[in-house]
């Protein structure tokens, strides 16, 4: 286990390395005001290669958005290291963090809430430039905004209009333009296509991939749509109840899923071919995701796993490489 992690760190291609990240939210409850921790993220490790995309999938409440918020230091993790380009994001103070926002950006889910209705589109995109005093002069800013609009596939004259005049997909393009205007190298995309129509989703994904190629961006792509995440990501992490269950490159994950949870997820995703879809075997999970306040002993997935045995209920499986950069946390796979 420990050797594995050192191999993780020594790789210089990694733009970000996350080790044993934990984010526990304290809540007080009951008559005695006991403080219990909601273990939203509980020991997550991965690294992200420069210029690539790491997908994070999982059902609601699995902690994927919390991971995203920790990566850009919107939340201060309870413990663990987040090393970005050689600096540990856990140690930086508020001022440095604000400066970091230029290189580490986030695009959020809801394009209808994320743009100020009183800003013109141009002002929205220039907001970051103005905050960081990156460009001065009205014309220089206008030029930059126009360039950004063209990059995301909108017309230059959109700058003088207001956000309410645009559709959801266009607004998401404006959000993207606002983020890339700061010339970041790392972007966390938090469910950026979930609020959009399927046809628009494809356009936005294509745009994100084009921008990645042109600007050499690194993405963390958080989503719950498996096919979308597979399409854009080189590596995919499957999260369940605050832990990564399986992590490998996307083709390997979808073709040979090892963890029972991954298998269940993939079998639940629709296949656009009714004959294949009817013929395949479905793995149906029973019950709901357990509460992160009181996760099960042993393997987090043992309450819903069809293969769970006594060992799974007692002992937590380690997150190990089973060969070919395929990491998985399951007793059944890693051997008895």
């Amino acid at each position: 286990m420990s050797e594995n992690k050192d191999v993780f760190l020594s790789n210089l291609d990694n733009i970000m390395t996350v080790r044993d990240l934990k984010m526990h939210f304290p809540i007080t409850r009951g008559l005695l005001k006991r403080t219990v921790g909601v273990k939203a993220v509980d020991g997550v490790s991965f690294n992200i290669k420069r210029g690539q995309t790491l997908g994070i999938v999982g059902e609601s409440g699995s902690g994927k958005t919390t991971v995203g918020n920790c990566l850009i230091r919107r939340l201060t993790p309870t413990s663990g290291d987040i090393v970005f380009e050689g600096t540990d994001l856990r140690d930086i103070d508020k001022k440095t963090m604000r400066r970091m926002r230029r290189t580490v950006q986030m695009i959020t889910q809801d394009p209808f809430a994320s743009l100020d209705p009183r800003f013109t589109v141009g002002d929205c995109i220039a907001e970051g430039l103005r905050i960081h005093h990156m460009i001065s002069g009205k014309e220089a800013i206008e030029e930059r905004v126009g360039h950004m609009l063209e990059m995301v596939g909108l017309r230059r004259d959109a700058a003088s209009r207001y956000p309410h005049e645009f559709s959801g997909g266009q607004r998401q393009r404006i959000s993207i333009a606002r983020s890339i205007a700061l010339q970041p190298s790392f972007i966390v995309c938090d469910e950026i296509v979930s609020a959009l129509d399927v046809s628009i989703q494809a356009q936005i994904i294509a745009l994100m991939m084009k921008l990645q190629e042109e600007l050499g961006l690194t993405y963390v792509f958080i989503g719950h749509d498996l096919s979308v995440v597979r399409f854009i990501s080189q590596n995919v992490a499957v999260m369940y109840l605050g832990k990564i269950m399986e992590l490998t490159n996307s083709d390997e994950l979808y073709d040979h899923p090892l963890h029972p949870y991954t298998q269940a997820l993939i079998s639940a995703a629709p296949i656009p071919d009714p004959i294949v879809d009817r013929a395949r075997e479905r793995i149906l999970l029973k019950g709901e995701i357990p509460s992160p306040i009181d996760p099960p002993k042993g393997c987090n997935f043992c309450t819903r796993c069809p293969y769970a045995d006594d060992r799974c209920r007692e002992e937590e499986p380690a997150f190990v490489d089973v060969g070919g950069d395929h990491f998985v946390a399951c007793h059944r796979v890693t051997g008895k």
Partner: protein
Amino acid sequence: MQLLKDLFRKKTIGGICLVILILFLLVAIFADVIAPTPMVDGNLPMDVRAGLQKPFENPAHLLGTDRLGMDLLSYMIYGARTSVILCVCCTLLSTVLSLVIGVLSAVIGGWFDLIVQRIVDAFGCIPQMLLLLIMMAMMGNGIPQMIIALAVPSGIAGSRMVRSSAISVKDSGYCDNSDLLGGNVLWKAFKHVVPNIMPLIIISAAGSLGGVVMMEASMNFLGYGVAPGTPSWGALITGQGRELLFTAPWLCIVPGIAIALLTFCSSMFGDAIRDLLDPRLKGGVGSYNTKKLNKVLARLSRPSEAAAAEDVA
């Protein structure tokens, strides 16, 4: 400038109201020049024998006279000085105060919010009139003192409303996003929160303008207003107007109309500005365009005519 142009083109009534408000202000400023009978040594000339003349009877006293024979028109013009200036200053001061307290309280949050809101609560516990009287007793009579005494408590009370709407803006997606872009608290407060709660601020400020005149009047009535003898609309209503309500109703009606006009104009002007500042409305919705009204009325009347024509056929 574009705003002013839009105001007259799209919101004609709002524009007219602005003109009336400016007229009020000019009258207040140039009272000495305009008044038919100017002040002598800081007092309006009195003539008890010419007391209680009705309006429009004597061209020398167009709006009539009061019990002491003071010319009512001159009194109103000099009263504008007290009332209009008091209103405008007071409303501006209290709006700025509630804006600063409310927005900072909402945006900074945490302990700061908790402490500031308890102070606001403490002010709210004291009856407003009592608070006014205490402040006036401490500071003495006079217009600047009255402005402070009227503006501070209402500004503090208003901050609560500002805070609650500022909190909802602060929690919105675009405020979170300015965090993500690296903006600090002040950026968030002045770039996002203040512009987005502006409609509410404008409306409440415009609405409270008329209330100030009446507060000033009730303070005069209790003897804590402006220096005795200084003309003011409120003082006229609560003084002679009230006493002689049945014998000389014009002493109440004339200042009453002036106060109503001031309140109405400020409300309509505020309303127009609010609509014009909202990019989503673009001054289109709620614009008081009489042409449009005529069109709607014409359309409404048409079906009945058509029906009548059918009946004939």
